[in-house]
C-alpha cells in the first residue's frame, strides 16, 4: 500500500518533537476525523534553522509531516512557503489515492507555522498575503472495503 519511503518516514520520522520558544507554530487539523498536525519553526535571518512536528494521524500523515519538515529545513521562508503537497507526495514516491489529502495537511501545517511567524514578526511573506488560517482541510474519499 505505502511506498518504502513512506514506511521509512513513518517508522523513523525525522524531526519529531517540539521546539521550546519556537519562532512560529502552526497547528491544523480536521475536526471531523480528528487528525491533527503541529509544526514548530526556528527561524534565523529568514532561514529555517530548525523544525519539529507532532502529528496525530495515519501513517501517511506522519510520513508527510516528516518529509515536509525535511524539505523545508535549511530553506528560506520564501522557499518554504512554496512547498506544495504534491512536492511532498513526490518526495515520498507517491501515496495511495485516498491518502493524498493527508499531504495537504502537511502543506497547510507548514503554511500555518510560517503565517504565525509572519504575524509575530509583523512581516508579510510573499505567497501568504491572502492566507487565512483554516483548521478544516481534511476530507476523505474513496477507499478500500471492509470485512
Amino acid at each position, binding site marked *: 500500500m*505505502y511506498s518504502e519511503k513512506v*514506511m521509512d518516514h*513513518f*517508522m523513523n*520520522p525525522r524531526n*519529531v518533537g517540539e521546539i521550546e520558544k519556537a519562532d512560529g507554530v502552526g*497547528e491544523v487539523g480536521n*475536526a*471531523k*476525523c*480528528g*487528525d*491533527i*498536525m*503541529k509544526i514548530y519553526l526556528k527561524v534565523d535571518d529568514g532561514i529555517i534553522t530548525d523544525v519539529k512536528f*507532532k*502529528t*496525530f*494521524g*495515519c*501513517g501517511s*500523515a*506522519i510520513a508527510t509531516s516528516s518529509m515536509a519538515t525535511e524539505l523545508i529545513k535549511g530553506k528560506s521562508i520564501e522557499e518554504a512557503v512554496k512547498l506544495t503537497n504534491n512536492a511532498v507526495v513526490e518526495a515520498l514516491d507517491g501515496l495511495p489515492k*485516498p491518502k493524498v489529502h493527508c499531504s495537504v495537511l502537511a502543506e497547510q501545517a507548514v503554511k500555518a507555522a510560517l503565517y504565525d511567524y509572519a504575524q509575530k514578526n509583523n512581516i508579510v511573506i510573499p505567497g501568504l498575503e491572502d492566507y487565512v488560517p483554516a483548521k478544516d482541510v481534511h*476530507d*476523505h474519499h*474513496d*477507499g*478500500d*472495503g*471492509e*470485512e
Partner: protein
Amino acid sequence: MKKRIYLDYSATTPMKKEVLDEMMPYFNEKFGNASSIHSFGREAKEALDIARDRIAKAIGAASSEIFFTGGGSEADNWAIKGIAFANKNKGSHIITSKIEHHAVLHVCEYLEKNGFEVTYLDVDEYGMIDLEQLKEAITDKTILISIMFVNNEIGTIQPIKEIAEIAKEKGVYFHTDAVQALGNIPIDVKELGVDLMNFSSHKIYGPKGVGAIYIKKGVKIHPLIHGGAQERKRRAGTENIPGIVGFGKAAELAIENLDAHIAHIQKLRDKLIEGIKNNIDYVRLNGHPTKRHPGNVNFCFEFIEGESLLLSLDMVGIAGSSGSACTSGSLDPSHVLMAIGLTHEIAHGSLRLTIGDFTTEEDIDYVIENLITIVDRLRQMSPLYEK
C-alpha cells in the same frame, strides 16, 4: 522468516487442512454441475446435499431451510431486500440497529430511497440494543426486524431469543446476521425462534465466497438472484460445489470443536485484555464485558490513531484492524464506535484484535510486549499527549 501473528480472525480465517482436503476432489475430478443428470452431476449433487445437511445440523434447522449464497453480504442483501419486496403489500417499515454490518445498513439505506421507512435502534455504551425501544418502534407497517447476533467490531452479543419473541408476538419477520456468531457461540434456530439467519464460510475456517441463509419454512421472500432453478428456485447460479463442500466441513468441525474452541480463544482473549489494561494507560475496552464474542478484543488507545497503530504492529508482524476514520474509506470512524458513544478522537485510536484457533499464549505475550512500545512511541509523536 519474520514472525507473523494473525489476530484478525473476525476479518477472515485461514482454511483448516481438513476443509481443504475435503474440497480437493471437487476441483477437477468430481467437477460436475449439480444440475446435470449424468454421473458427474450426481456426484456434485450428493456433495451438495451432504454440505446442506451439515449446515442444517450445525444450527438445528431442516436441510430444506438452508440456501447457499456467494457470501455473507449476499445473504444479508437477500434477506432484507427479499423480505421487503415480497411483503410490501403488508407494510414498508423495517427496524434495524445502528451497529449492523454495512451489508445490512447500506441495504436499508437503499430501501429508504425506494419507498421504505427504516428505524435504526440505538445501542448503549456496551453496544446492546434496548428491548423497550424495539417494542415501541414496531408499528402496523413493520414487516421486518434485522438485528445482528454478534457484532463484528466490538463483539457484543444481542438478546436474540428475546427479540425473536417480540417479533413473533407482533407478527413481524426477524432476521439476524449470525456471520460472527456461527462457530463462536451455540446456535439453535428453532430454540431462538428466528425467521432468517445468515452465515459466511470464511469466518469459520472455510473457503471465501460462500455463505448460507436459513429461511424458516413458510417465510415469504423474493429471490435476489433470479435465473436457473438451483437452490429450489430461490438462488440461481451454478453451485460452487468445492466452496460449499468446504463450508459444510468447516461448519461440522466448528460444531464438533465448539467447546474447546471457545475455551481456547476465551482464555487468550482474557489474557490479552488483562495484559493491555495492566500495562498501558488511557485505554478503554469497547464492547460488553461479558456478553461478548469469545475471541474479540477491542480497545481504544487515547491520543493515537488506529492506522498508525496497525502499521506499527504490522512492522513487527502482528495483524489487527481498526475502526479509525483513516482506515475506513469513508469520512467517518466506525459507525459502531460512534453508536456506543465514543468521540471522534477516541474512536480514532481503536484497535481490534481477534483471536482464533491457531493463536498461542506466546503470541499474546509477544503482542502485549510490542503494543506497550508502539503505543508509547506513537504517543510521543502525538500533539494530544502530554506526559
